[in-house]
């Protein structure tokens, strides 16, 4: 199952793209309550947004972004049937990607 959920909404000729991602976004300073050991860093570093195959936005981020991160973007224009692809890479090299068709 994908870690990425995408929703789109047409707004005044633009398209709002909202995404909710399941990811721990651990900054490496939290301790595991049972073992008392530091939980290693594990956070998304890069996220890209593509519209019909073209990159329209790219984000570099750190663990200052909340757990289970949420992002909302505003695509200029956008038509029904257009494809939005969001993908991310984290510091451990994990990746995920999801595709959404604007309705």
């Amino acid at each position, binding site marked *: 199952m994908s870690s990425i959920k995408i929703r789109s909404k047409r707004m005044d000729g633009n398209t709002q793209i909202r995404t909710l991602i399941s990811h721990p976004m651990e900054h490496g300073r939290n301790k595991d309550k049972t073992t008392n050991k530091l939980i290693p860093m594990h956070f998304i570093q890069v996220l890209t947004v593509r519209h019909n195959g073209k990159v329209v936005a790219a984000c570099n981020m750190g663990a200052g972004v909340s757990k289970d991160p949420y992002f909302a973007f505003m695509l*200029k224009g956008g038509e029904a049937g257009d494809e939005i692809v969001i993908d991310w890479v984290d510091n451990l090299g994990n990746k995920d990607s999801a595709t959404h068709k604007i309705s």
Partner: protein
Amino acid sequence: MWKTVSAAVGWPVSDFAPMNVDAATKQLLKGKTATETDKIELTIPEIAENGAVVPVTVSSSLEGIKSVALIAEFNPVPLAIQMFVTPDIEPTLSTRLKLAETSFVYAFAETENGWFSTRKKVKVTIGGCGG
């Protein structure tokens, strides 16, 4: 012109290293200075219910924006996120940040005419019984 928005390649390690806010700002601005402006809208609650999840939206009417960034004054790593944009997308970003403590949150916009910024103070509280 839009080389900065290539598909996910090198993440700037040095931008996200632990440092104080002045160093983080210097690092982000690459030595340039930012002009305070009211043309960046930073929407963030005055009081954060929980410092782990603080909803924030940054948008701007400035021309020729290349990127927007959010810096949290007292976070061990102040730079939270930098979004690079193409002309196909509005320079608007909503997300949720972690705030270590009561602090300023700075929003920066990089334009063809240099850097601009605004800031808002957010109180991060210790709840009574909520903890």
